[in-house]
């Protein structure tokens, strides 16, 4: 276990312990304030989950007993009295004792087994020698400060404003150059000298801003290592569970990325690694029979390429079989047989990204989250990444993600289009081409051009965006951009290319929720905004789904918060799930039973349902089936959260129509949120 990871845990633990301690002391003075229990329970629970994540079984065992006690108090089965509070404080002390020993790199002096046994019997037991906080070595912390993430974001924003202002200065300089050029010769010398000096000043300012920007960004950057420790654990556990022999190697742990991006990358990697193990690497026997080493290899690597990061997941397993994928896609109605025939082997691999393709895969998805590749693709798009697949059947599968370093500043090509200026992130840009009208062919109902020998659909960007399209007749040369996304290429005609620029990404604000075609806006040198295109949307649009302006109802639908129905007979789980979801901005309604859930779901429309399995009355599986059978809920995602962890239970859940299955034992709020976000955003 990485030292860094442990450090993060200890810091987190410190916060939870402090809030446990203060909460318990308040409770001791006012035993009637049982409302505090919930927060305490959350502290203990989170601590337990985090301890499990970093493999600290001792802390997880202690916090588990504390949690049980708190649950008892919450449900009224246990009294909230001085003795009970004493016991809880003792538990917090024990955890503090372990973490402080870990921080010093020593073995904690505590017989955890005995402690837990005594705790469960309600005995105060062993005397704990917790040391006063002051005695902890502070030296390592002395030259670091903790900064609020909001403050960091604000700092980055301010630097962004500086960049924009510098650009404004630069465009003023250009203007000055023009003016100087137009002046009568006599006045020019002095002004030209002045302009030269100003130019130097701006250049120096530019240098300073770049430095500042790098430093400010650096504050938000974290190495891949911060998430990879957990991944190693995941691969190890999965391999054990599946009976695979796997050597997992990570290259490029030190590559740093924006914290926000790293957060977005984690669920994607979890999914890809799970796929590599469950679908890629064969059993040792099968490998031996195929003349491969018994031990499979999974490689996660990260490296810089220009201004982006390439992250690769490669396994030397059975590879992806294009013919098999085509057959499966046809069988699942993802495409018709004629289309399938026209697809090349490379293109066939990308069928796995189509919605509806992976429905059958989830049954074998051992990680228990059962989310299809289409959702992974959505997540990649969300972090402005592009993905490429490569595979040789029987030999290897490789998934390559290209991601920007950050989402706050992007390299972009600026284009004029329909009388406006747009920025196109270079991640999606293959090349700029000039097209003569005579080079355009018609194929089916659309136009195509040849780009490096490949037939590429041609669209008008203003037309796709619904802006005024003025394409003049005649054999004029047209400017176009070739965009790439997954395996697809499209060419889009624009009015003109205006050059490359680093653009500061600004959100469009709450008035624009999930607006189509746009990722954000930036502010140009002249002070006016320019819109940043969300390229994946153009590919969707290219398939002929052109949408008109939103109707009032659609706009209304967009405005409301996403609604989740939480079904569980346990008040703890219910309220916990509710508070987790509410804190993330979801609207949550709870139901205490399957019957209650059916009643509530008939009355209002939910975007997602989270259900327990074992409940009085109809159980979670039956509930899922009932929802699936109704017109209104046929496509609404259902997540099953249960303490049943057998594969058979998962299979049953997925067969009933659930999208994901989370085992309560491994339940933590992060996993739940990730899954919810994956499914409904």
């Amino acid at each position, binding site marked *: 276990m990485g030292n860094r990871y442990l450090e993060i845990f200890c810091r987190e633990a410190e916060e939870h312990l402090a809030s446990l301690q203060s909460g318990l002391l308040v409770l001791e003075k006012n035993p009637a304030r049982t409302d505090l229990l919930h927060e305490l329970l959350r502290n203990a629970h989170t601590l337990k989950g985090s301890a499990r994540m970093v493999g600290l079984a001792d802390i997880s065992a202690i916090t588990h007993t504390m949690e049980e006690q708190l649950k008892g108090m919450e449900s009224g089965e246990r009294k909230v009295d001085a003795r009970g509070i004493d016991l809880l404080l003792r538990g917090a002390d024990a955890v503090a004792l372990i973490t402080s020993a870990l921080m010093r790199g020593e073995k904690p002096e505590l017989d955890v087994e005995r402690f837990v046994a005594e705790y469960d019997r309600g005995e105060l037991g062993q005397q704990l020698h917790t040391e006063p906080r002051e005695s902890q070595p502070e030296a390592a912390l002395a030259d670091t400060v903790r900064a609020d993430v909001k403050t960091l974001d604000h700092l980055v924003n301010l630097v962004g404003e500086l960049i924009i202002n510098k650009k404004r200065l630069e465009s003023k300089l250009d203007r000055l150059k023009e003016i100087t050029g137009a002046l009568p010769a006599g006045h020019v010398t002095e002004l030209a000298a002045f302009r030269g000096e100003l130019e130097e000043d701006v250049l120096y300012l530019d240098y300073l801003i770049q430095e500042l920007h790098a430093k400010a960004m650096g504050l938000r950057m974290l190495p891949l290592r911060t998430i990879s420790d957990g991944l190693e654990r995941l691969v190890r556990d999965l391999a054990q569970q599946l009976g695979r022999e796997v050597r997992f190697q990570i290259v490029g742990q030190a590559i740093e990325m924006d914290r926000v991006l790293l957060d977005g990358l984690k669920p994607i990697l979890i999914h890809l690694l799970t796929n590599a193990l469950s679908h890629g690497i064969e059993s040792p026997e099968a490998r031996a029979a195929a003349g491969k080493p018994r031990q499979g290899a999974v490689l996660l690597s990260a490296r810089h390429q220009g201004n982006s990061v390439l992250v690769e997941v490669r396994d030397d397993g059975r590879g992806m079989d294009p013919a098999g994928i085509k057959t499966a896609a046809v069988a699942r109605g993802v495409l018709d047989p004629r289309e399938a025939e026209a697809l090349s082997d490379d293109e066939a691999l990308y069928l796995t990204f189509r919605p509806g393709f992976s429905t059958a895969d989830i049954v074998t998805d051992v990680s228990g989250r059962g989310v299809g590749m289409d959702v992974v693709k959505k997540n990649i798009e969300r972090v402005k990444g592009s993905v490429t697949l490569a595979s040789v059947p029987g030999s290897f599968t490789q998934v390559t993600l290209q991601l920007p370093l950050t989402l706050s500043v992007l390299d972009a090509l600026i284009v004029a289009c329909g009388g406006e200026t747009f920025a196109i992130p270079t991640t999606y840009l293959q090349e700029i081409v000039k097209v003569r009208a005579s080079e355009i062919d018609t194929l089916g109902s659309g136009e195509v051009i040849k780009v490096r020998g490949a037939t590429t659909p041609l669209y008008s960007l203003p037309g796709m965006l619904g802006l005024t399209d003025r394409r003049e007749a005649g054999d004029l040369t047209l400017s176009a951009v070739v965009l790439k996304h997954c395996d697809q290429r499209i060419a889009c005609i624009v009015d003109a290319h205006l050059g490359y620029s680093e653009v500061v990404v600004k959100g469009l*604000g709450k*008035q*624009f929720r999930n*607006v189509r075609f746009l990722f954000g806006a930036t502010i140009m040198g002249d002070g006016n*905004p320019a819109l940043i295109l969300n390229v994946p949307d153009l590919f969707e649009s290219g398939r002929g789904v052109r949408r008109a302006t939103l109707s*009032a109802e659609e*706009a209304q639908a967009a405005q409301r918060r996403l609604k989740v129905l939480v079904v569980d007979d346990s008040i703890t789980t219910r309220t916990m799930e509710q508070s987790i979801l509410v804190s993330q901005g979801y609207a949550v309604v709870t139901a205490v039973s399957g019957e209650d859930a059916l009643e509530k779901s008939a009355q209002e429309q939910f975007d997602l349902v989270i259900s327990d399995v074992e409940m009085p009355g109809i159980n979670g599986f039956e509930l899922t089936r009932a929802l699936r059978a109704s017109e209104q809920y046929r496509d609404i995602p259902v997540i099953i959260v249960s303490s049943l962890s057998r594969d058979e239970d998962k299979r049953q859940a997925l067969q009933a129509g659930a999208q994901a299955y989370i085992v309560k034992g491994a339940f933590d709020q992060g996993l739940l949120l990730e899954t919810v976000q994956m499914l409904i955003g």
Partner: protein
Amino acid sequence: MGDDNSYDIRSILSQMREEYWQALAGEESEAKETLECLVFTLGGKRYAFETHYASEVIRVPKLVRVPAVQSLIRGIFNLRGEITAAIDIRPMLGLPQPEIGPTGRILVVRGENFATGILAEAAHGVQGLSFDGFEPVASGSGMKAQFVRGHFNLEEGNVILLDMETLLADPELVAGEA
């Protein structure tokens, strides 16, 4: 949502507003007080809303059109670093849309969730409007009245008081897909 236990937050809010308004109107009329409003022209008529909704009035800057959004969002502009939308609320009020000329202004207002710019043909500044001449909107006077609270009868003509809270909460102002 025919649940007995559920309640309609909108009706509660509008009831609260009603009560607030009545209390205010009662109290103010006794004192013959005035309501401080920003007065402007929309569709050739004079409109007003309370000054506390307005954060500033600016000349119309270059508006950048946004693809695939409803037509009332006329574009976005840079409000000191914040990307802000310029909206044309005249169709919501059933008004004609004469061109926004050189006297045109953007009234920047702050709603609960976002700040937005309302396009107006002209802005006439802040005026104290006397409650003496206020007539609340008659109930049942049609759909277009949903954003109107009533009007002030002034010597120089009518000024219609907008219900900014309802207007700014209207989903039609928000662009996006579910």
